[in-house]
């Protein structure tokens, strides 16, 4: 899958602030606030590698599709597809749910 095809879909994600596409060899693509952010790439790789080793009892597959690292103002959403790790930094301004 060409890099352009990978990143075009990520560009269109609403409220995205930046993204990374990472492989075992290193960062394939980066943009926005994550442009050239090798440090975040390294941390996300380690986190998703650890998380994908979790198993619920009796299951052979990882029990999740997406890992979210939720911070105050933004969220890192991370998934793995075809030996590549995708990280998207998205705006996150849900605090108290507004009840009218």
């Amino acid at each position, binding site marked *: 899958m060409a890099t352009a095809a990978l990143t075009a*879909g*990520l560009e*269109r*994600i*609403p409220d995205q602030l930046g993204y990374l596409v990472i492989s*075992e060899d290193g960062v394939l693509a980066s943009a926005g606030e994550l442009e050239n952010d090798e440090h975040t790439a390294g941390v996300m790789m380690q986190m*998703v*590698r650890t998380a*994908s080793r979790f198993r619920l009892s009796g299951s052979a*597959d*990882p029990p*999740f*599709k*997406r890992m*979210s690292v*939720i911070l105050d103002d933004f*969220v890192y*959403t991370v*998934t*793995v*597809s*075809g*030996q*590549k*790790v*995708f990280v*998207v930094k*998205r705006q*996150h301004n*849900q*605090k*108290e*749910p507004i009840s009218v």
Partner: protein
Amino acid sequence: MGCCYSSENENTTQEETKPLISPNPPSKPLNGGTGWNPGTSSSALSNEQALLSSILTKTAQNIIDVSAADAIMVEPHEYMDRARQYSTKMTVLSTSLPQNKALALPSLTSQPHQVLASDLVPYSDVQQVSKIAAYAYSAISQIKVDAKEDLVVQFAIP
């Protein structure tokens, strides 16, 4: 993984397995063995000397002294031949080794864009999970040992 000299392939030629530098047999006699311990008897001393010299022999056989070896005579064409042989063997071995399955990242989805674009985790869910984790932490921190009896007792000898 195997040590340097282990080989499963018995068809290697003599040229390939001959060591480049022949191991140096020990030529130096053990010096300083006499008179350093004047208290022991002569028979004990010679036993010690024999032990020490055997240790020295074993060590010398296992150590290859690169600086003391004669200059290695290898024809340039033979050198190139060997280099090519080794590199082809390396590439064959590296491609035939099985990939380490345990280290490969399992694919979580075939639709990464859809998964990443979908709604974020609702704040209420995050709050609930944080509360559950806090309760679990508090419960675990309250686990303590309730010592009823001594662990170590004396046997009563009548």
